[in-house]
């Protein structure tokens, strides 16, 4: 296990380094630059050149990359070229919205997927099982954007239970208000992800139900439910945890859409705006951090696999 952890950590560090280079170079391939955002349509070429020089954008790319990397190594993700705000501090504020949003989305997804998926597996040859599978198909097909709009129309506009959009100006100072603002976004995000996950849970449980060891367990006198509970879930969890790890990345992408529908000041809407303004120092800090989050999640999923499944720990 220790050797595995060392190897896996080494791989993580290498991936992060490669991600840093990729993020930096890919952003430099985008047409347009921040000088045009600052100077506007009226700026003459000389003025744009002066803005670029002020921002250090006329330096060689290698030099720009080195100074960014040096900052990242110190834990400093840089500053916005437009308004000087600290990338780290702003990401911190945005994650106060996107973090709970993604976490809430996962909770909703799990609450939907695990019981319903298991139920659909246990009743796979009945109307109930088919019905659940059909619903899951609908859930996968329905765009998050549309689902968000419908939720708002029903629960905010018609019933007036929850806010239609936005996040409290003072953030989590009033936790009740902040949580209320995130209920519909979490449901919109979680239902779509939950539908995807449900299908994996169902097929994983169906697979386990037909496994030899479960039949043996049944033979010892356990009911199907008890056998599944004692000997099945741990096995069924393996593919589900993998998918959940992959889905977390999808969740971040979904957050971009949900944040727009609900006008939430989160990481997604910030990224879209910053790319549009070509505030590249800010974008590369943000993207790098997100990539790091996804890579670390992958790392944790792999480690979790080993912990759940002792067979993986055996040397081959």
């Amino acid at each position: 296990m220790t050797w595995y952890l060392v190897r896996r950590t080494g791989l993580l560090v290498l991936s992060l380094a490669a991600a840093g280079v990729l993020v930096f170079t890919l952003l430099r391939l985008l047409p347009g630059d921040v000088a045009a955002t600052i100077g506007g349509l009226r700026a003459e070429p000389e003025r744009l050149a002066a803005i670029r020089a002020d921002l250090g954008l006329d330096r060689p790319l290698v030099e720009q990359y080195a100074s960014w990397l040096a900052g990242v190594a110190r834990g400093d993700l840089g500053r916005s070229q437009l308004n000087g705000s600290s990338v780290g501090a702003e990401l911190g504020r945005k994650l106060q919205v996107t973090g709970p949003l993604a976490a809430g989305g996962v909770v909703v997804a799990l609450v939907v997927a695990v019981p319903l998926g298991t139920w659909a597996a246990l009743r796979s040859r009945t109307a109930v099982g088919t019905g659940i599978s059909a619903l899951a198909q609908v859930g996968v097909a329905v765009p998050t954007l549309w689902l968000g709009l419908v939720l708002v129309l029903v629960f905010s506009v018609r019933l007036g239970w929850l806010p239609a959009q936005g996040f409290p100006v003072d953030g989590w100072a009033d936790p009740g208000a902040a949580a209320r603002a995130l209920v519909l976004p979490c449901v919109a995000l979680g239902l779509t992800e939950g539908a995807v996950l449900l299908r994996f849970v169902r097929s994983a449980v169906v697979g386990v139900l037909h496994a030899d060891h479960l039949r043996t367990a049944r033979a010892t006198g356990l009911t199907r439910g008890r056998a599944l509970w004692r000997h099945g879930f741990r096995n069924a969890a393996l593919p589900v945890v993998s998918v959940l790890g992959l889905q977390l990345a999808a969740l971040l992408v979904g957050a971009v859409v949900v944040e727009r529908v609900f006008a939430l000041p989160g990481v997604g809407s910030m990224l879209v705006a910053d790319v549009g303004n070509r505030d590249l120092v800010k974008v590369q800090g943000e993207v790098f951090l997100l990539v790091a989050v996804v890579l670390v999640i992958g790392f944790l999923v792999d480690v979790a696999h080993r912990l759940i499944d002792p067979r993986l720990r055996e040397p081959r």
Partner: protein
Amino acid sequence: MRRLARIPAALIAAALCTAACGTGDAVDPGPVASGQEATPPDDRLDLDATANVRAVLEPTSLNLFGTAGAALDQVLLDNVYEGLLSVDPDDGDRIVPRLAESHTASPDGLTYTFRLVSGARFHDGTPLTAADVVWSLEQQTAPGSKGVYAADFDAIASVTAPDPATVVVSLRQRDTFLLWNLAQRGGVVYRRGTDFASLDGAANGTGPFTLAGWNRGATITLRRNPDYRGARPKVAQVVFHYIPDPNAADNAQRTGQTDVQTAADPTLLRPFTGGGFTVLRGTTTDKYTLAFNATRAPFDDPDVRRAIRRAIDKRDVVGAVGAGTLIGSAVPPQDPWYEDLTGIDAHDPGGARELLARAGFPDGLAVTLTVPSIYPRSIGDVLVSNLKEAGITLTVRQVEFQTWLSRVYRDKDFELSLVDHAEPRDLVNFTKPGYYFGYADEQVREWFAGARSAASDAERDGLLKKVARRITEDAAADWLFLNQTHTVVREGVYGVPVAQTSNRYDLSALAVAR
């Protein structure tokens, strides 16, 4: 089994869609109020109210001096910062006094004397003096100035302060645009010695509101300035909510999260026609301009450009976006030199074909339009079908705005381009030699220069009318429509700006009933 399961899924999805997708089909915005109710007396107002206003574009910075973007003007100009003069968009763009209570011009038009109001103070408590005005204007006229509007003041020779309440501006040559330019953000007065890079953190203006906070990505809060010299604002606080999505903005307004929705989508106004809201319609300076690359064949031939102008039915375009005014030139009706030029090269597909044949394209033409993806896709659809009638095959290429900026605006790599020229009074673009249109006409340049140094406003207006007519006759571009802006106001909210709301948004009259 799997295949069967898909059928109910598709059916449910279709049923859900018909139930909830029906909000985007209305084009008629319904009844639009002709005016606002008069603001009731103060004892019936909630003077401690917070007014919530939906806006679309968030500023990228709060450095009003050095960062471009109408979003900065919208929130900061007149509210937080003031110039010597201002403009009242709801009164036909009349220039009105602000920090200067009066001004006079010498008979030769080379010297302007401004008398400052008394009692003006910056938000940090420092009294405003003529020295601050001199310093601020010198930041614009200094060589290599970082001011976005610095070029507006190149006629200024010197700015002096003979006494603390008087400012004298001396010009190298007459400039009939000076007062207008002073009323824009280039004329804003900052405290002497302001470090513009610090404006993002701490605003220090003289206006009726102070900047209370910027929650990036969401809101900007302005608070009433208790020490304001003039009439105090009637609300304690105004929060600008930046909500780009039109549906989210509609929902915010319907559920009372916002009191005022600026720039409402004209095709989504139906929920506001049932009472409880007023819909106001105002003009803008947003000229949706179809530019031809006149440096590239076949658009160097005026006949080809005119053919395209004739092929487009501007009423179809307006129908597709929901609202708009036909202008027929680069001048909106609120400018003093406006003239109705919609009759020049009016819609005439047959005439367009004839012009094309004369230009050597009897079998039609295939052209590509580059358009930023922020504009309604429906405009492109209308153009494709309109041009097809005249034998022109149009390909619409949607690009991100920054791509448009570098590919079309900077590199001039395009055939047709569509963009909203939102700046007020920007006829000057047709006189710039290297501008992306590639339009060059010596006579137009001469008239424009003559207008700027004209002896009277009447002479100026006459010359600018000639400019507008000439560029229209030459088909220097096509002007699809002038945008109209719709503001949805909750019942019990008064004094809301109506016209040109994305350029400046004076909140001094905004009031909320008890």
